[in-house]
């Protein structure tokens, strides 16, 4: 019965991120990001009722279900010029915030912490000393000697079993690992605790969305949550209080643990503030609308060119004309037919697979461009766009991070140092703190609005018979997401999703400009090219959205280190 096969079949179906790097003198001299993705899925939406699109787009991806559902209803609402009742905005915002907090915690602890934390050093740690150290940097109450000892025992048990189990893939003992045994233990203890708080954030999504992993409460024009403070079958005070309590726990974890751990890692790996910058054009859209029209937001948007923070340009709305007009997709190096870079409303998705050729076509991802240039998206873009506009909440947590890193013995970073691998991690933690604060604000806004007697959750959409176009955006955990819809005769005529990882994992365009992953890897030093931990650190810092296979070539083109990386 026991036959060795691939049990995780979707890896070959849903798409992989593949990174090719050339290594010269122990540093990356050239890089290609290529992916197989689900772009063809957009075609199945043609001819469908636009009010149904979100149910399908929610299945684009198993991790980012909610965000694709949200961008989809927003695109149709934009096309129909439909306003959204306040309650619906707040409920949506709470779902988006809870999803993002969950996602950011998972990203740091489960996806990337073990790039910096050497689990096999943990048996050497002293839980009492670790507890003292932890108390000196955070008020978190779960840094006790007992809690730390319990985490250490878990590692000891796995190590004693003779099989590394869940830790089988780490780069343990790699010369790029720099943390002391005590700091490794502290971070690992939080890795275990993080699972509990992720779950609490998911519970918030589940209560408001009726179900996870696929929420059920969205509808074009609002939400389907009935509000009745006295009815258990509706959104009542009991459920609202549960949400408040769950959020309070998650907020505390984000601000006292996640944020502090990222600052500690940053303090102890200071050279990573000067590695991994790459594309310094940044793009973020405004999100978390505060009114029914979508004219005021809690998260600002805009764009920055060439790292010039002072020259930031602001987007006033989530479908700002500059954004609507500025986006194109280029397929020069992607496996699609077509000559010109096209606007998403005119977008085509006709495959032309050629096999990987780094000089010609090499990726299933199109190359999105804004005003013709590659853009980096994600928490770093959002933080820089906000900071450079003097956005108070962004400034508050960015300055707090800079102070915290310095107080733990790290360098006093400037916002300019954020153009880096560590900068992306720091920005994600800064954004998580902002969202944590906003979670509580939007909960209060919802409760206050209901208390005024407003129970409205939905405006009825009316589909016109003439052709209309819309864009729905969301500043998702991995950055700017936009769904573009063309509606004619009450049916979808065209649909394109320009997702955050398309911006970041973009291949070169016809001008030869690298995408952000590619550019960020250039010049990265590698201590052991056959174990390219440093490449993974930078790729992970973007929070990539696809399964990834990494190949390392030496300059003669011979593959090295493939076995280890695959």
């Amino acid at each position, binding site marked *: *019965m026991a036959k060795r096969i691939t049990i*995780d079949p979707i*890896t070959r179906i849903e798409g992989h991120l593949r990174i090719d790097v050339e290594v010269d003198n122990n540093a990356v001299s050239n890089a290609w990001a290529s992916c197989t993705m689900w772009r063809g899925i957009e075609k199945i939406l043609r001819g469908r009722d636009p009010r149904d699109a979100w149910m399908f787009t929610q299945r684009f991806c*198993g991790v980012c279900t909610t965000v694709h559902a949200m961008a989809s209803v927003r695109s149709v609402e934009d096309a129909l010029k439909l306003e959204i009742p306040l309650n619906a905005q707040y409920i949506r915002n709470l779902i988006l915030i809870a999803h993002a907090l969950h996602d950011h915690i*998972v990203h740091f602890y489960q996806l990337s912490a073990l790039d910096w934390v050497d689990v096999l050093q943990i048996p050497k740690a002293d839980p009492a000393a670790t507890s003292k150290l932890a108390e000196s940097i955070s008020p978190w109450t779960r840094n006790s000697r007992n809690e730390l000892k319990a985490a250490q025992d878990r590692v000891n048990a796995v190590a004693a079993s003779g099989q590394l189990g869940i830790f089988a*893939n780490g780069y343990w003992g790699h010369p790029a690992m720099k943390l002391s045994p005590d700091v490794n233990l502290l971070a690992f203890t939080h890795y275990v605790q993080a699972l509990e708080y992720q779950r609490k954030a998911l519970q918030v999504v589940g209560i408001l969305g009726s179900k996870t992993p696929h929420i059920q409460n969205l509808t074009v024009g609002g939400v389907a949550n009935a509000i009745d403070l006295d009815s258990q079958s509706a959104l009542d005070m009991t459920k609202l209080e549960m949400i408040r309590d769950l959020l309070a726990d998650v907020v505390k974890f984000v601000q006292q643990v996640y944020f502090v751990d990222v600052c500690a890692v940053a303090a102890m790996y200071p050279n990573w503030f000067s590695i991994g910058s790459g594309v310094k054009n940044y793009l973020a859209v405004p999100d978390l609308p505060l009114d029914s029209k979508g004219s005021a937001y809690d998260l600002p948007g805009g764009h920055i060119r060439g790292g010039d923070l002072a020259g930031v340009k602001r987007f006033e709305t989530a479908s700002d004309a500059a954004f609507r007009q500025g986006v194109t997709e280029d397929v020069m190096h992607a496996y699609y037919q077509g000559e010109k870079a096209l606007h998403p409303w005119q977008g085509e998705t006709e495959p032309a697979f050629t096999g990987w050729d780094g000089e010609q076509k090499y990726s299933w991802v199109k190359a999105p461009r804004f005003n013709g240039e590659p853009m980096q998206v994600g928490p770093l873009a959002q933080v820089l766009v906000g900071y450079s506009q003097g956005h108070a909440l962004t400034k508050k947590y960015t300055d707090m991070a800079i102070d915290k890193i310095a107080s733990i013995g790290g360098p006093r970073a400037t916002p300019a140092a954020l153009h880096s691998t560590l900068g992306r991690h720091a920005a994600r933690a800064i954004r998580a703190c902002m969202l944590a604060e906003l979670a509580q604000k939007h909960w209060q806004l919802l409760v206050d609005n209901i208390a005024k007697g407003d129970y409205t959750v939905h405006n009825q959409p009316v589909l016109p018979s003439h052709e209309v176009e819309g864009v729905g955006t969301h500043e998702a955990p991995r950055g700017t997401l936009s769904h573009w819809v063309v509606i004619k005769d009450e049916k979808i005529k065209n649909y394109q999703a320009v997702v955050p990882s398309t911006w970041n994992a973009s291949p070169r365009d016809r001008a030869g400009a690298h995408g952000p992953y590619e550019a960020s890897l250039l010049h990265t030093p590698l201590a052991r090219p056959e174990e390219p931990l440093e490449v993974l650190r930078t790729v992970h810092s973007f929070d990539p*959205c696809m399964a990834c296979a990494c190949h390392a070539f030496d300059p003669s083109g011979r593959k090295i280190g493939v076995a280890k990386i695959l």
Partner: protein
Amino acid sequence: MRTALIGGIGNVLLGDDAVGPYVLRLLESQYSFEEEVDLVDLGTPALDLTHQILGLRALILIDSVASDDPPGTVVRYGKEDILAVAPAERIDPHSPALSECLLTAQMLGACPEQVLLVGIVGAEYEAGQPLSAAVQAAVAAAIEAVVSELSEFGYSCQKKAGAEPAGIWWSESRSSLSESSQI
């Protein structure tokens, strides 16, 4: 309180990858289960699968699998078979993570004792296409495998007198689904 989970895994938009959620919905429409048994369309959950399985006694998953067997073959994998597949290098949060989630649960001392993966060997994974003929023909055998193993695990279920609509919304016609709100 739920102690057993039957989960359908797969992307419903990608041909035979829909078979996990498809079989799950047929099970729901054709059988009633005791309260301790929960049925969930998990989609493609990756690392979040951990949250679904922590502390369970029994776990049965249904998924399309890649193997050398002909399409439509139903293959059962036990806990040891799954754990023998070392987790792949993790670069993104999307990669499927079955063995990884079981190992995480094991490290936390909360791994289900009984684990079964009912795998159906797929043929086509084309966007927007229905199940291939070979996989469609295997659906009944997959349902039978889940029902018999659930009983082996000590849980009960009863065949309903009349099956309810299965709610395979993704393969329904292009009229408005919003009215029926089957998610």
